[in-house]
């Protein structure tokens, strides 16, 4: 199953959500931000190499606490990368390892469109600030157009005094909204490679990522059931 984590606005915490959801699902997290990668990168081939035809997608997967397929940092690499190959690369990794979580870039360009088009489902991330909400609605529209069902919306870094219009958001986007309270451990989790589901299993954030992971699994079972059913009926 391929799950795209998108959100329109940059800096709302898509990468942290993708990383921690990947940990909850034991999935490979792919950094699809071809121009401005976020996930840690070590030696070896990366997504730029895969999309330029220089490496096999599975070669670029780094196994750690959370398995990652990192992306290169250079503009030249971003220019040489063919986003048309991204669909095939994501399907290859999903076929080999099972679940893939794609950390999408900000914006509404082709590098967001392709993961959403390939994904079986998506998770949207928004900041509780009003300026970020319009972008998440636009991303929702794009996901709908590209047939990526919405599993849930994460309102990241909420504070006690935030007046979050969660109900309105749930009605507008048509999916459950969960709030991740501001927690420095979530922000640090990516750089420290310590996902909150294992580093702070009792935190509210860990609870959100676990339940999001459960919803992904439910969705996966439902899809499988539906596919079996359609095969049987044929």
């Amino acid at each position, binding site marked *: 199953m391929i799950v795209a984590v998108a959100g329109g606005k940059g800096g709302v915490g898509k990468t942290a959500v993708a990383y921690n959801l990947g940990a909850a699902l034991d999935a490979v997290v792919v950094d699809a931000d071809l121009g401005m990668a976020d996930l840690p990168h070590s030696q070896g081939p990366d997504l730029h190499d895969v999309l330029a035809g220089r490496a096999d997608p599975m070669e670029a997967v780094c196994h750690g606490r959370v398995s990652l397929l990192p992306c290169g940092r*250079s*503009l030249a690499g971003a220019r040489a990368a063919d986003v*048309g190959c991204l669909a095939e690369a994501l399907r290859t990794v999903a076929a080999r390892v099972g679940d893939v979580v794609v950390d999408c870039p900000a914006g509404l360009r082709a590098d967001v469109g392709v993961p959403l088009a390939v994904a079986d489902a998506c998770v949207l991330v928004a900041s509780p600030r009003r300026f970020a909400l319009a972008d998440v609605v636009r991303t929702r529209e794009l996901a709908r157009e590209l047939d990526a069902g919405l599993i849930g919306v994460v309102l990241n870094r909420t504070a006690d005094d935030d007046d979050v219009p969660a109900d309105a958001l749930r009605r507008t986007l048509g999916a459950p909204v969960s709030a991740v309270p501001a927690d420095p451990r979530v922000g640090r989790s990516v750089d420290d490679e310590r996902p909150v589901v294992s580093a702070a299993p009792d935190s509210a954030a860990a609870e959100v990522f676990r339940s999001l992971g459960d919803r992904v699994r439910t969705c996966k079972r439902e899809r499988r059931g539906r596919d079996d059913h359609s095969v049987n009926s044929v």
Partner: protein
Amino acid sequence: MESDWTLTRLDGRDDVALVTVELHNPSPVDRRVRVTNRLSGPLLPPRRAGVPERGWDTDGFTGVVPAGDRRTLGYACPAPDERPPVEVRDEGRASAAASESTAAAAIRGLDAARPPADALPDASAAHGAGTASAAMETDAGGRSDDEAVSQNDDPPASDETPSATGTDPTVVPPSVAAWLAAAERRIERGEQLTDASAETAATALGGADDLAALDEAVAADAERLRAVSARAARLAERAAAVDVPYTALRRLA
């Protein structure tokens, strides 16, 4: 299904055939049609953002012609003539729209995500870094740099040895040298065409359409070079007048 085709040659490229097919569906229902290329070369379909338009594959086109309507298709194919160039097959009444690869639709419909070629750092800068990853980046960037080079015939800036700029005071920085070389080439070409006989002009002309652009570019070069030369002269004068009293200052420090 009525169909009509034309086969022409691409301007200036006799080896490439341009095929257009006009389809007309006189029946009162939408009909699905398959158009297959019969020429011996690879089919080059219309593309948007590098992705073939909906309905095209490596052998031809599949799509729907609405009831009582027309649809015109066109493609290119590097191959010798053959008549007819296409085979049109009516596949009967069109049922529900076939699903297409939405990843291709996303690439066609959304803006490209690639950074522009102009944003790429100079290849020589990447060489300077000297790490394995920098070498790989240069490798990748080289391809896109080639496009830029073929457009304006600039020599790659890496011809200059960056270390020489530090030691030899008469060697200008590589970017300046590249700029001057490009201006010189444009000016030389302009000189060839100034008061040229018909034959010289004909040999110097690659394509006639860029002459106006060349004239403008050379005029801009002249203005810029004059500005740079004036500023450089002023700076050189000021530099010559500088006399740092370093012995006196050292005593103060």
